[in-house]
Structure formats: C-alpha cells, structure tokens
C-alpha cells in the first residue's frame, strides 16, 4: 500500500495503520507493548486520546512514558519516567500471568486465519529452517494472558498464510471454542490492524474477517494480500481518515525518535 490524500494532507498506509491501531487503545487501560509497530501505536494513543493508559514493556518497566520510541524492549528511555521498574520474572508472573494486563499489543511475522502467530521459523523444517526468526520472546504469554490482544502487521500473502510454519503464540487455535479448551485466562485477539484495513474474529467461528477498509484500499487488493480466502463483513466500514492532530503527533514522535537515534 502506498500513500493516500485526505482533505488536509497526504499520509502513508503505514501511518494509517498506526493511527487505526492507536484508536483501538481505550483510555486508562494497562497495555503490554511489543517493540516496533505496537510501541509506535501505543505511544501515539498515549500522546493523543489515551493519556491515562499505562504502558508495560517486558523488560520490567511499568507506566513507561517514553519521549521517543524505544528501539528495544530495554531502552533506558523506558525506565526514566516509569511508575515502577521491576524484574523480568515479576513482569511475567505478577503482572501478565496474574491478569493485570488489559491489552496485549503484538506484532508478528506470520498470522493465520484464526489469529495464531509465528515468530519462530519460516520454510524448511524447524531443524533446518529457510529463515530463522528471532523466536518467541514474550509473545506466547502475552497472547495467553492479556485480557485481549491487538495484533498489527502489514498484509501480504507471505504474512497472512493458510498454515503457519510454526505456532509460536496462540490466537483462536483451530477456531470455534478451541481456544477456551486450552484454559488460557485471556480472550484472544480482538482485532488485527493492517495497512489495508481492520480484521476482527467472527463471533462464532473466530475466523478473522475484514470489517474495515482504510481509505483508498479495496476489497480486491486486501483479498490478494491474504493467503487464505478472506471473508468480508456484510457491513464493511471505512476507517476514518487520520485527523490532522493524529498525523502531526505521529510524525513528531517519529522525527524525535530518528533524531535521538542518530544522536545517541
């Protein structure tokens, strides 16, 4: 997806994706944030409509208030103005597993139609993979224990696949009520935000269904970018275009981040 124009400004599909994802974060929630796109969207939410949301990074920072986007889950920026900094076991046991996280915000390398995620290997088999990805990190337990999960990734046939090479983190397992049978406390992925639009699980089958299109995106293009036969909601909506303030805050944040990255 490339850029689009609204009344005020041109914006890119990536910007639309981050803004759409940030809108999913309600004020006051406790959000466990993955690095990269999720961190961008969560901090955009904090700087716009959800200043009260509390960001947790797996390095142990609670109530992190970064001025620039962290490059890693352990940047000093995260500890600087945090409400608390605790050990890694404490974050995973006393916070995540304990059910204190309202929203888990994840990225992914691959996702399937039931919102299961792969961040381990692609191609070949596990012992001799074509591509060795970084691995699980905090994702499996975020997917298991956060009350709900928001996933962000760019839509393409390589990323949205019929069958994952490896299930690193569980979404709705094989669909229907199969996740419930696994006994996880969290409800699973409530939404997947892409550069094309917004997917939500069907209430019954739990299959990810396109419920919203970003301005300029088409159903046909979204279908082509999906490795399975993508279901489309009857009442497909169109995402509100980025507001001027959203765009400005996002761009400021990215500029500050780039400047800090070069400087320090």
């Amino acid at each position, binding site marked *: 997806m490339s850029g689009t124009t609204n009344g005020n400004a041109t914006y890119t599909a990536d910007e639309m994706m981050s803004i759409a994802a940030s809108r999913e974060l309600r004020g006051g929630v406790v959000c466990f944030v993955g690095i990269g796109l999720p961190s961008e969207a969560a901090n955009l939410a904090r700087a716009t409509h959800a200043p009260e949301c509390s960001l947790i990074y797996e390095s142990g920072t609670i109530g992190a208030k970064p001025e620039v986007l962290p490059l890693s889950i352990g940047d000093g920026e995260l500890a600087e103005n945090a409400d608390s900094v605790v050990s890694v076991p404490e974050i995973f046991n006393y916070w995540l597993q304990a059910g204190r996280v309202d929203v888990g915000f994840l990225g992914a390398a691959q996702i399937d139609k039931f919102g299961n995620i792969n961040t381990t290997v692609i191609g070949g088999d596990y012992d001799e993979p*074509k591509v060795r990805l970084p691995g699980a990190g905090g994702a499996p*337990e975020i997917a298991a224990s956060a009350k709900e999960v928001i996933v962000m990734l760019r839509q393409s046939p390589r990323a949205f696949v019929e069958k994952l090479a490896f299930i690193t983190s569980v979404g709705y397992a094989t669909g229907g009520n199969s996740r419930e049978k*696994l006994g996880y406390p969290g409800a699973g992925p409530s939404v997947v935000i892409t550069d094309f639009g917004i997917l939500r699980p069907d209430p019954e089958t739990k299959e990810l269904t396109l419920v919203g299109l970003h301005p300029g995106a088409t159903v046909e293009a979204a279908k082509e970018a999906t490795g399975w036969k993508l279901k489309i909601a009857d009442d497909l909506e169109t995402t509100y275009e980025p507001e001027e303030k959203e765009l400005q805050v996002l761009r400021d944040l990215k500029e500050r981040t780039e400047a800090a990255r070069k400087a320090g």
Partner: protein
Amino acid sequence: MAEIMELGEAVESLVSDGDSVAFEGFTHLIPFAAAHEVIRQGRRDLTLIRMTPDLVYDQMIGAGCASKLIFSWGGNPGVGSLHRFRDAVEKGWPESIEIEEHSHAGIANRYVAGASNLPFAVLRGYVGTDLPKVTSTIAPITCPFTGEELMAVPALEPDVAVVHAQQADRNGNVAMWGITGIQKEAVFSARRSIVTVEEIVDEFEPRPFQIVLPSISLDAVSVVPNGAYPSYAHDYYPRDNAFYEAWDPIGRDRGKFEVWMARHVFGVEDFAEHLRSIEAEGMVKE
C-alpha cells in the same frame, strides 16, 4: 564472598571449556567486555544461555565458542537478524549449534527455579503452541489441590553467570539500577559468578529501583569501564545505536566478521584496547 580481581584472571579461573554460561542483560548492561575475554581465551563447547541473545552471542557463536544455545528471543534489537546465529543454525557455520528454545516467561521462571534450588518451575503457557514439539524441557504438571493442568520447565543452573553493573563497593557488594531484567536470578541460579562494573565506590547512593547483589552471593568482581559498550549503562553512557546498525553488514558476511574479530577482539589485549581499536576506525560514537 566476592574477590575483586582482573577480568582476565576471573575468566581464567571461573570459566572452563564445556561450561554452561549465562551472560545476561536485557538490552541494558550487556557484559560485552567479559564475553570478549572469554572469546580471547578461546573457550570452546560452551552452552550459552540468555533470554535475549544479541550481538555479543552473535560474536561468540561466530567465533566458535558455543555448541548449544538456550534462549527465548535472538535478534539485533531495532535492526534485524543475528547473522552469525542464523548461519550456525541454518548452515552449521563455523559449526552446527544445538538450540533449546523457550518463551521469555519460560526462561525467566527456569532461572527463578534455579535461584531457589528447586528442580522445576510452573507457569501458564506453551499449551497449543508448537514449542513443546521441538523443546523437550517442557512438561505438563497437575496441581495437587485443584487438579488443574499447567506446564513445568526445569531449573536453569548455569555453571557460570556473567553480568555487568554500574558499581561495586570495596567489599564486593554490587549495585545495579535502571532496567535490571533477569540478572539477579541469573547470578543466583549459577554455581559461580563474575560481575564486571563501571567503577568501585566507597558507598552506594540510593537510586530509583536499585538492586544490590551482596558480596557473599558473588565470586569475582572486575572493574571494566564501558564494559557494557555498545549497550548502555544507565547514568553512565547511552546505547550506541550506530554500532548495532554497523554490525549488520559485518555479521552478515563470514569474511568481514573474521577480519573484524581478528582485528578488534583477538588482536587486542583487553576491552580498553578494543574500544580504542574500534574508535580508531570510527566505530565508537563520541
């Protein structure tokens, strides 16, 4: 009781071929200096343990120190892949490396069990993922009170834990603050431990979220200023993001990697010389 000694001596006396060694640090305070010393001393057949193996394990794996890696997330944070790690896993260069892969919560709890002298830890996780298919150190366990089924993971008990911290006092107590990750559990789970520090001080000032590793829980403390470079030491120096980016093309190419290691790690006496050596080639940020 910690002995304050030269890093070379600490590695010489505490790290042996075939040991399992955990160099911990969650982006912050990564013990680069100690890892370079292990590389320079030519240790082989190590089982490397770390939640977040990054550049320093890329260097150790590429240099042929490791026969096994126990980990939960391996990447160059903010940049991309660890090419030496991938080359070992995907192509067996310089030798093939066995991997034992968990989630962060799994490894964290394995350290907690080790630190507590328990044979296993229990957590909610892994069910429905493919990890139990490829990792044998995950097993179901049933609660004797509720009948609930959970997952167990065995304790990690490294032969040696190596961490970097900001300060030690003259008795060998160590203070660390900012993001302290899993370092305490790594040290407490290990049979032996080496801590490198930025400096020795007469007395610790109170710092937000400071932890102290008492001298009686440690074996060796070594002073190595900038010993976590290119990662950062909170209140001492920032992360050199440019180094992480510059590593990508070096790590990507076997030849470039070998030249770089020969020049900047094997070819120097110690970490101070390493820093001068890369600075001379414009790799250390002012």
